[in-house]
């Protein structure tokens, strides 16, 4: 309820909120699409928000981690199950059982890769007290390098993600749901809630929040903050990988730039929800997804990224600490 109050507190936000709601009543199928796509953005932005909130820098490589995980999942699938094209797909969905087997391995691999990059790169920057922008710049270097590597190995063109075509579910009000998207949305919600539980109800989660509040004090209380940071990277990597793979399942096509292109909606979602707040990131992701889809009802769909950019600008103008955050200047 507290969140709802906050939304109504600010008049401009209030007006925008009603505009979106009104428009979504006019074309409810777009609203539903927005929720489904938004849930994928949410998953990506929760990981991004975790790193932004706790390690205090904008991780420009988050998107490329997502891209990399899609390619790694595909490569594992083709390597271990070269005949998966012939096997049956899962229930009403387009993907095969084999993909579900490959996903956990990929996700854990990307998690450890994030940890490795911390040891190789970010640990050093922390040790000499680099400014947030300098760390973000280094992550930009990592993003460029990763993308180059992906293109070197798998080529610059788009790659098909193996699938079987399936019928959409037809619902009233012209609402059509691809079953895959429904699956992805459900998984996204489950993971978001699990992560919320970890962060707020477990000892590790509390230690993560304590480290984020005040790393020096956390060390004084006996918390090995360097290890906590590795957990943060691992979880961040896992969330990035999961969202990357879910998005590729849903899009059926992967490209080396997909992760880079998604950075703006993800960051917009993170800032809308308040940096470091996983529930905020979930709501931010949904809001961004819904706004983007509803906009396509009236304007050229290829302008979707521009809509995300506009949302980001409006948020920075009106409530730079996010809709759920406190008013005024941050830091």
């Amino acid at each position, binding site marked *: 309820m507290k969140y709802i109050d906050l939304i109504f507190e600010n008049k401009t936000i209030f007006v925008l909120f009603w505009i979106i709601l009104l428009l979504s009543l006019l074309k409810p199928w777009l609203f539903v699409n927005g929720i489904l796509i938004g849930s994928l953005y949410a998953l990506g932005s929760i990981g991004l928000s975790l790193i932004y909130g706790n390690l205090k820098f904008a991780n420009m490589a988050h998107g490329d981690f997502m891209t990399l995980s899609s390619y790694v999942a595909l490569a594992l699938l083709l390597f271990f199950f070269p005949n998966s094209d012939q096997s049956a797909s899962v229930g009403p969905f387009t993907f095969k059982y084999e993909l579900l087997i490959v996903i956990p391995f990929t996700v854990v691999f990307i998690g450890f890769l994030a940890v490795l990059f911390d040891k190789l790169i970010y640990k050093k920057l922390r040790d000499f007290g680099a400014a947030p922008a300098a760390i973000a710049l280094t992550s930009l270097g990592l993003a460029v390098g990763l993308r180059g590597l992906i293109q070197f190995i798998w080529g610059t063109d788009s790659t098909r993600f193996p699938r079987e075509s399936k019928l959409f579910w037809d619902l009233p009000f012209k609402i059509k749901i691809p079953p895959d998207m429904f699956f992805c949305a459900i998984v996204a919600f489950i993971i978001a809630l699990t992560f919320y539980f970890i962060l707020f109800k477990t000892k590790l989660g509390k230690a993560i929040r304590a480290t984020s509040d005040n790393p020096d004090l956390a060390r004084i209380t006996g918390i090995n903050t360097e290890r906590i940071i590795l957990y943060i990277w691992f979880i961040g990597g896992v969330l990035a990988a999961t969202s990357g793979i879910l998005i590729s399942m849903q899009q059926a096509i992967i490209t080396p730039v997909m992760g880079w292109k998604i950075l703006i909606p993800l960051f917009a979602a993170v800032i809308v929800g308040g940096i470091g707040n996983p529930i905020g990131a979930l709501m931010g992701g949904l809001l961004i997804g819904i706004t983007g889809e509803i906009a396509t009802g009236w304007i050229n769909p290829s302008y979707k990224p521009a809509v995300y950019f506009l949302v980001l600008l409006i948020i*920075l103008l009106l409530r730079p600490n996010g809709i759920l955050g406190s008013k005024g200047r941050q830091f």
Partner: protein
Amino acid sequence: MDSILYFLIGFLIMSGIYSVFSVGLNIHWGHTGLFNIGIASFFLLGSYTAAIISSPSPNIEKYEEYLWGGNLSQLSILGIDFWFPLVLILSALVCILVAIPLALITIRLKEDYLALVTLGLAETLRIIFVNESWLANGTRGLYSIPRPFDLIDRGNYDYIYFVIVMITLALVYIIAQRATNSPWGRVLRGIKDNENTMISSGKNVLRFKVEAFAFGAGIMGVGGALFTHGKRFIDPITFEPMLATFIIWSMLMVGGSGNNRGAVFGAFLMWGIWTFTQFLPGFLSDANLRFVFVGLIIILFQLYKPNGVIPAK
């Protein structure tokens, strides 16, 4: 022999153009600490402004939907191509006008918000120019962009353009050098080193930062205009972030941020590596490996030599 020389001139032209961007980025990052990862925005704005205002009005045969064409290239005074400096100035002005509101929105907030906004702007502008073909002929791009000081035969024109680029670079360099050595520039460095001291000494930090952002963006606009008249063809793909943003960052990292000389040196060095690695044998010439290299350069210099090869004094 001639073809090698011509190739070298082409290389030097591009290095010079990139040097302009690198000097502009140095105003942002090296002198003020502003994190701009949407250099492509100003690259694109400068380039399209120059192309649109200098090209002749479109005819139906050449362009289907494109409407504009300032045809400024007809303007010459006493037989001198007076239009070209005007194009450079106007391109810079457009970038400045876009940079100021952007900076006003974000600079009062966290320092990396500027990065997100510039990143978003670059993508948004690119999409606009892809979709609105009346604006600049969409994905088919603008071509046959006029040559300034078109005095000798077309085959040897690059020699003239080389001189133009070098003169422009020298002017940009001198202006940047003057600005950064002035009291204004000292305030910027003060902001970069310790913003709170500057605030407590009564400086309007926000204003200085906005001015620095606009100044750097203007220089990038000049770079964009130079690029347009050098390549004489631009389309939205030209402004993909790799060659319009990332490589410029690697140039500044190598050369030394905070130091205009280093910025120019880094541009020549990195463009040299970028250009000449394509002659390597086998897979080593793969363009994607150059991506990896650019990324590594940024990371390694941040880790081991954050002040670059030629650090600021």
